């Protein structure tokens, strides 16, 4: 038995430590359970024991490499285990994202935890149930075919008494081998799947999945005891703060260590251009970072902020790709009666999490333990190992929930910061970014400029739709593109292009999309439906402009251009929900304009879709928008937890409105200048509209993503409401008062 197995056995077997799995997310932090050894090896996905353990008291612990970003994944996974294993959900515990304890399941991204990440969880639970039945058959001397499972017991089909799972296998190994379905590069990054030997349950047979099970994490969150990464403390730990350059690309020329000499225990930490401070007390580290005097070279790499959308298409092209392409665009344009060409601009935006990036690292000469809110524990582990010069086996990354991240962001950066600082000072270091570090240096959602030329015939059918977008990749964090690694030198850079336009769902004879990826000005990484959010803003704005040109109601116009029944259902549902009436431009005499906009969007290959109607009032004198109502109809196929889904959908809706109404990262020639919540506004309570939500469950359809599908059409719905109110269509975001006033 390896050391790894031993430690797992201790965690599973000792009742006091078993609570750790739950306590990790619920209450206290027990460092001794994980800190004693460095990483041994990854838990192999072929072993059922890697995924599930049953304690003598019947508690079932699921080990998953997927993580919960505040969306309820922990609870959903427990629902799956409850159903596939036939065990009460109250007996299920979930351990997530510890590279020494949980199988590698790739990245937690693209709202695919359920669609992709839950698959091996379901297979493992189903195989565990079969293994328990086999054990009971042997013990009872009854053929397996005459046994059933219920509420954590195996029992004869005809009897009401049986043997509990705890009695059958409590604290012992299953020793069952599973088969991994594939190990392509995509499988590794998106998460491996297992080949089911036992058929998985059908949706209609679920008893727990499909119900609004309350989330496991919320009681501890409202009680203030939930164990976030920000709360991790280890013995001998120092507090670290980063000191970033005054300009992107500036080189560190000299540091005046005496400038922090009066601060108790403060120590300057430097490696090449990476600069930080550590101190025994957090407030002293903050004071030292503020006081530290350093000389940097000058650097002005960024473009003139006022011309970014003109400059984007002129940047060096990384690749020029065809998204979709069918029909003859020129012929389609010629057929149209209404012909339009419009350019839409989408700004750089922040993920803007409320709790700045934070990590704790304990690094010595031969091993490292990192506590991080990373969305990709295994990927980040491997990157940090390379950065530190340690074999990956000697690095353990322990995920702890961070502030909601909505795409990857500074969590991985903070992990690298903490790792370097700990390596330099030889003690564990906790790093939390300050607010201006987060707003100033998080990897952003890149700006995009999109041009569409299209036409509609006299009947309101779109005859041509020719789209092109210019944007840097939205995935520049996949290969160790950590800020700290750049500053110490030797970072491998970035290597994946993402942020392509959404697949246009309308039935248009001639449609074409070009995705032009250009060199970046700033680090970028995905933020809720990268490319989808931007392209759908353009698509659905353009559809309204075409509908207006054709003199057709925008809801009717959309119905005419898609023949998909699910598209029709979300559109009609949101029409009913909002009391949609054909559009007219209305104006009130008191200086307030009212408007209503509709938009729809799809996510993925169309497994999920939403339609929205947003109502606004616009103060004519100032251009200020008030959101009065927002309605959303949402279809992601099977609904696993209706209340949890509504929480995600409404969250995506409000975040989408916030992005469209307020959000824009600003910069000068040196660096980002929108460094706090006054410079970078997000939606507030006072601005909340009335919200009406309708789910359209489709248990027999393929499962779709939730979080991102609720947000993709919000910007267009809001822009279309402004169009309705003012008669002028916005061509860029955010819809701040100055811009709205300017277009009126």
């Amino acid at each position: 038995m390896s050391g790894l197995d031993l430690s797992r056995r201790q965690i599973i077997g000792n009742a006091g430590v078993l609570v750790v799995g739950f306590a990790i997310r619920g209450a206290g932090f027990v460092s001794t359970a994980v800190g004693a050894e460095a990483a041994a090896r990854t838990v192999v996905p072929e072993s059922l024991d890697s995924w599930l353990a049953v304690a003598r008291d019947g508690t079932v612990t699921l080990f998953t490499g997927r993580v919960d970003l505040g969306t309820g994944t922990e609870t959903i996974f427990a629902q799956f285990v409850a159903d596939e294993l036939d065990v009460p959900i109250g007996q299920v515990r979930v351990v997530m994202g510890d590279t020494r304890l949980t199988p590698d399941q790739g990245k937690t991204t693209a709202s695919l935890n359920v669609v992709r990440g839950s698959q091996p969880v379901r297979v493992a639970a189903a195989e565990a149930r079969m293994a328990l039945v086999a054990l009971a058959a042997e013990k009872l001397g009854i053929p397996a075919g005459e046994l059933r499972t219920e509420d954590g017991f195996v029992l004869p089909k005809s009897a009401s008494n049986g043997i509990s799972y705890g009695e059958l296998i409590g604290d012992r190994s299953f020793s069952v081998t599973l088969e991994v379905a594939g190990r392509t590069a995509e499988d590794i990054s998106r998460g491996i799947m297992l080949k089911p030997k036992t058929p998985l349950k059908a949706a209609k047979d679920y008893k727990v999945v499909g119900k609004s099970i309350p989330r496991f994490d919320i009681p501890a969150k409202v009680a203030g005891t939930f164990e976030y990464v920000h709360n991790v403390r280890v013995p001998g730990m120092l507090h670290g703060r980063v000191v970033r350059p005054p300009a992107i690309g500036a080189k560190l020329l000299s540091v005046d260590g005496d400038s922090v000499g009066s601060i108790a225990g403060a120590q300057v930490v430097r490696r090449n251009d990476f600069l930080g401070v550590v101190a025994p007390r957090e407030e002293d580290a903050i004071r030292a970072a503020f006081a530290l005097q350093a000389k940097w070279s000058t650097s002005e790499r960024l473009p003139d902020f006022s011309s970014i959308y003109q400059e984007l298409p002129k940047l060096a092209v990384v690749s020029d790709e065809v998204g979709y392409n069918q029909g003859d665009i020129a012929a389609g344009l010629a057929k149209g009666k209404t012909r339009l060409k419009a350019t839409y601009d989408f700004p750089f935006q922040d993920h803007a999490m409320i709790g700045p990036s934070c990590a704790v690292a304990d690094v010595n000469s031969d091993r490292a333990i990192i506590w991080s809110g990373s969305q990709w524990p295994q990927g980040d582990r491997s990157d940090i190992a390379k950065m530190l010069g340690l074999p990956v086996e000697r690095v353990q990354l322990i995920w702890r929930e961070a502030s909601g991240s909505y795409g990857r962001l500074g969590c991985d950066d903070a992990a690298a910061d903490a790792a370097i600082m700990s390596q330099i000072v030889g003690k564990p270091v906790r790093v939390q970014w300050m607010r201006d570090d987060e707003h100033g240096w998080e990897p952003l959602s890149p700006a995009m400029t999109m041009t569409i030329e299209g036409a509609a015939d006299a009947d309101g059918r779109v005859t041509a739709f020719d789209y092109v977008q210019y944007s840097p990749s939205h995935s520049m964090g996949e290969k160790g593109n950590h800020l700290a690694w750049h500053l110490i030198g030797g970072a491998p850079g970035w290597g994946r292009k993402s942020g392509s336009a959404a697949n246009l769902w309308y039935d248009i004879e001639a449609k074409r999309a070009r995705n032009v990826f250009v060199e970046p000005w700033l680090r970028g990484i995905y933020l809720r439906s990268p490319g989808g959010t931007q392209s759908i803003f353009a698509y659905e704005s353009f559809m309204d402009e075409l509908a207006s040109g054709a003199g057709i109601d925008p809801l009717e116009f959309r119905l005419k251009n898609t023949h998909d029944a699910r598209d029709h259902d979300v559109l009609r549902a949101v029409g009913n929900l909002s009391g949609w009436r054909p559009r007219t431009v209305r104006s009130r005499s008191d200086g307030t304009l009212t408007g209503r906009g509709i938009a729809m969007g799809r996510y993925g290959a169309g497994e999920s879709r939403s339609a929205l109607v947003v109502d606004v009032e616009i103060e004519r004198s100032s251009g200020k928008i008030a959101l009065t109502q927002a309605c959303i109809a949402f279809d992601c196929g099977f609904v696993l937890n209706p209340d949890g889904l509504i929480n995600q959908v409404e969250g995506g809706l409000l975040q989408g409105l916030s992005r469209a109404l307020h959000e824009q990262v600003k910069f000068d020639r040196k660096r980002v200048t929108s460094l706090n919540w006054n410079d970078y506004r997000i939606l507030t309570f006072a601005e909340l509209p009335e919200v009406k939500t309708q789910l359209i469950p489709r248990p027999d359809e393929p499962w779709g993503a939730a979080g991102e599908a609720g947000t993709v059409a919000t910007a267009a719905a809001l822009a279309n409401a402004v169009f309705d109110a003012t008669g002028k269509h916005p061509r860029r975001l955010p819809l701040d008062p100055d811009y709205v006033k300017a277009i009126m």
Partner: protein
Amino acid sequence: MIERFVLKVNGREEAVSVSGETPLLYVLRNDLGLNGPKFGCGLAQCGACAVLMDGVEVRSCVTPVASVLNSEITTSEGLGTPSKLHPLQAAFVAEQAAQCGYCIHGMVIAAAALLKRNPNPSLAEIKVGMNGHLCRCGTHLRIVRAIERAAEEGVRL
């Protein structure tokens, strides 16, 4: 200069030795192990660090520890525990009013302060009362409903 201070936190007297200008937030988190209050901005803009000071909400990230010595400080840990939630916290759970939950301690504190001064707030009063608190997940509607529920249930602070 390091001084010894005695604070009244969650009904207990706690002695700490720190510099008087230290923001209360770091004392609560690092010296007293009360992790409910969170660092969000250090600028009193977001509300993640909010605590009650004699029943009134203050931002602990900008409140020097020396300024709270004669006051009763309350964090969410002082209201209830996960297994024995305060009725206000129970209303948040009943409405499932959290996603990532990083802001939610501050929301509970702000709701407590609001209900203390106005036990039956209107929707508009709730929106105004909570307006200095930011949530990025978009859980606002549920937070409002949790406060409405608590008010309907006659929760007293």
